[in-house]
C-alpha cells in the first residue's frame, strides 16, 4: 500500500524493536487513567487509576473532575506500570496515546503528557483511536489466538455504544452504527437512579436482578421496529428505554404498590442485552462475518455476556471476549494498537495532533 512506509523506516526502529516493539500506552479518555506496556502482542503491564468514586455522588462522570484526577494520577500510574513490567524508559521503544474519541479536557492531559514524555526520551509517538484500541486489546489477551479478520466488534461502555466492521485493525475499520442518544452504560446508570441504586449502575442492577424474571415486563427495544431497521439498522437508542422504566415505576408507586425490583432490573437488563446482541449478530449475518468481538465496560454485565454466548453459539458465530480488566478502558489497549501500527510499518504521528472528542473510527492513527 502506498500510504504505508516501508517497515524499516517506521520510527527509526529496527530488528527486535520493529518485530516486537515495547510500547507504553497512555489512556485518559474518560475516568480511568490507564498506562499499559506491551511487547509486540505480549502484555507486560496494565496499571489503572480510576476516579470513579469521585463521580459517584453526581451519578455520572463529571468531565472536570475526571480531568483533574488524570493530571494527578499520571505520574504515579506511569511509575506503577514500569514497576509492573520491571522496565525503565530506556527499554521502551515507542509511546502511544489516545487522541480520541472521549472527553476533550481529559484527553488533553494524556496528549500533553505523551508529547512531553516522547520529546524528553526521544521515543516515536503514535496518536491512536480509543475505539479501535478496544478491538486491538484482544491481541494482547493472555492465551489469545491471533485475532481473525474480518470481525464485527460491539463496543459498549458508559461513554460509547458502537458497532464496527473491522477488516484490518490498522488500516480498515468501518463504523456500522452507534447510539443516537445515551450510551448503554449511561442507561444502566440512569435506571439505577430510578430504582434508588448507587452509581455505577451496571453492577448494582446485576446484583438486584438475581432471581428476577427477565420476561416480567416487556420494555421497549430501541430502534428495532421495521421502520427503524431501514434507517437505523445498526444504531442504538436507550433514552426511550430509560423513560419507559421510569414511567412503569412511577405508575406502580402512584398506586401505592410495591416495586418488584428484581423483575424490573432483570427485565430492563434483558432489553439492553437483547437489542445489543440482536443488532451485533444481524451485522455478522448481513456481512457474512462469523466472528464477534465484545469490548467496553458494559461487557462486565453478566447478562450481556451470557446472552452473547448463547445466541452466538446458535448463530454459529465465534465469540471473543477479552478478560474484563482489558474490556474496561485501559492503557494496554492503546499500547497494543501502537505496537500493531509499528509492526506494520506505520510512521509515527506528527507532533501537532490534539484531542479530538469525536475522532471517527476510520481514523485509526492520527497522522
Amino acid at each position, binding site marked *: 500500500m502506498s500510504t504505508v512506509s516501508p517497515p524499516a523506516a517506521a520510527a527509526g526502529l529496527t530488528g527486535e524493536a520493529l518485530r516486537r516493539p515495547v510500547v507504553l500506552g497512555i489512556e485518559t479518555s474518560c475516568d480511568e487513567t490507564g498506562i499499559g506496556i506491551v511487547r509486540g502482542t505480549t502484555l507486560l503491564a496494565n496499571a489503572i487509576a480510576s476516579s470513579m468514586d469521585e463521580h459517584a*455522588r*453526581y*451519578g455520572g462522570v*463529571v468531565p*472536570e*473532575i475526571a*480531568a*483533574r484526577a*488524570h*493530571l*494527578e494520577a*499520571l*505520574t504515579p500510574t*506511569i511509575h506503577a506500570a514500569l514497576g509492573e513490567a520491571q522496565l525503565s*524508559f530506556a527499554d521502551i521503544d515507542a509511546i502511544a496515546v489516545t487522541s480520541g474519541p472521549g472527553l*476533550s*479536557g481529559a*484527553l*488533553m*492531559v*494524556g*496528549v*500533553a*503528557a*505523551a*508529547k*512531553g*514524555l*516522547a*520529546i*524528553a*526520551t*526521544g521515543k516515536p509517538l503514535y496518536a491512536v483511536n480509543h475505539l479501535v484500541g478496544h478491538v486491538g486489546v484482544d491481541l494482547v489477551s493472555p492465551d489469545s489466538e491471533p485475532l481473525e479478520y474480518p470481525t464485527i466488534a460491539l463496543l459498549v461502555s458508559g461513554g460509547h455504544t458502537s458497532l464496527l466492521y473491522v477488516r484490518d485493525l490498522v488500516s480498515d475499520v468501518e463504523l456500522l452504527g452507534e447510539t443516537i442518544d445515551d450510551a448503554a452504560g449511561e442507561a444502566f446508570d440512569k435506571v439505577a*437512579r*430510578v430504582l*434508588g441504586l448507587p452509581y455505577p449502575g451496571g453492577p448494582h442492577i446485576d446484583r438486584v436482578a438475581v432471581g428476577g424474571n427477565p420476561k416480567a415486563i416487556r420494555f421497549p427495544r430501541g430502534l428495532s421496529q421495521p421502520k427503524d431497521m431501514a434507517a437505523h439498522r445498526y444504531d442504538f437508542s436507550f433514552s426511550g428505554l430509560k*423513560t419507559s422504566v*421510569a*414511567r412503569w415505576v*412511577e*405508575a406502580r408507586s*402512584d398506586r401505592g404498590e410495591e416495586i418488584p425490583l428484581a423483575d424490573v432490573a432483570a427485565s430492563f437488563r434483558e432489553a439492553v442485552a437483547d437489542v445489543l446482541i440482536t443488532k451485533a449478530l444481524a451485522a455478522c449475518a448481513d456481512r457474512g462475518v462469523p466472528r464477534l468481538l465484545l469490548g467496553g465496560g458494559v461487557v462486565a454485565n453478566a447478562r450481556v455476556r451470557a446472552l452473547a454466548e448463547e445466541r452466538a453459539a446458535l448463530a454459529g458465530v465465534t465469540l471473543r471476549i477479552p478478560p474484563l480488566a482489558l474490556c474496561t478502558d485501559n492503557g494496554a489497549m492503546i499500547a497494543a494498537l501502537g505496537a500493531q501500527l509499528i509492526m506494520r510499518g506505520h510512521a509515527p504521528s506528527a*507532533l*501537532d*495532533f*490534539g*484531542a479530538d472528542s469525536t475522532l471517527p473510527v476510520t481514523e485509526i492513527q492520527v497522522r
Partner: protein
Amino acid sequence: MSDRRELLLAIDTSAGTSVAVVEGDYREPREVASSATAASTVTAGAHHPAAVTEATPHRAVVLSEANGFDTMKHAEVIGRLIEQALAEASIRPQQLTGVVAGMGPGPFTGLRVGIAAANAFALGLGLPVLRVVSHDAIAFAAQGAGRTGEVLVVSDARRREVYWSLFDLSGQTPVRIDGPGLAKPDALPHVHAATLDAAHVSAGALGQVALEMLRTGAPFAADQALYLRSPDVTLSTGVKRVTQR
C-alpha cells in the same frame, strides 16, 4: 550557596502556550589560591585559576522562548514549542537540570496541558519539577520592564471573573504579598494598587523566577494546579418524574 549551573526547561499554559530554556550560572567569585586547589582536584593538570575568578556570579539568562498565543490550542502546539525552544537554545533534553511548571492560576483545560507536559517531560529524564505561580512570572517581567511599587496582576479567568495577585515591586525582586485569588472584576481587592492586565505569561520570565528561587532557597509552589475554582457540578436533586401526576 554552592557552585552550580542550572539549565531549565520552563513551560506555562496558564494563558497561551509558552516554552523557554533558561540558564543560571552561580559560580561564586573567590580567592585565586583556594579555587586553584578546588579546580585541580577536578581537572588535574589542566586547571586555569584565572578562569575561576572570572566566573560570572548569579547570571540568569533566557536562552530561548517559543510562544503560541492561541488560548484554545495548547494540546496541539505544546510538543512543537518544546522542540522549538530546545532547538533555538541548542540544548539536548539530557543536558537539562530541571523542568519549571507554571501552576496557574489559569483556565483549567489549558493550564493542565502545560503541567502534564512538564511532569511527563521531567519524569522521562528523572528531573525535578520546579513549580512556580504563573502570576509571579508576570510580575517578574513587569519589573524587568521598569514597573515599580505595588502592582495588582489581573488575568482572565473566563465566566466574567478574573484571577489576581498583589505584588510589591520596590525591592530587588518582586514579592507577592497577596493572592493568587479569584474575583468579579468589580469586586477586586487592593484597589489602591496599580493594576496590570496580563494576557500573556512568558516562560522565560517563569524560568528566571525559578532560577531566583533556587538561588535564594525560596520554597516552590505545591504540586496541585491553581484552579481556584471548584469543578462545575450540581449535585443531583433526586430523581425527576417523567410522567405528570
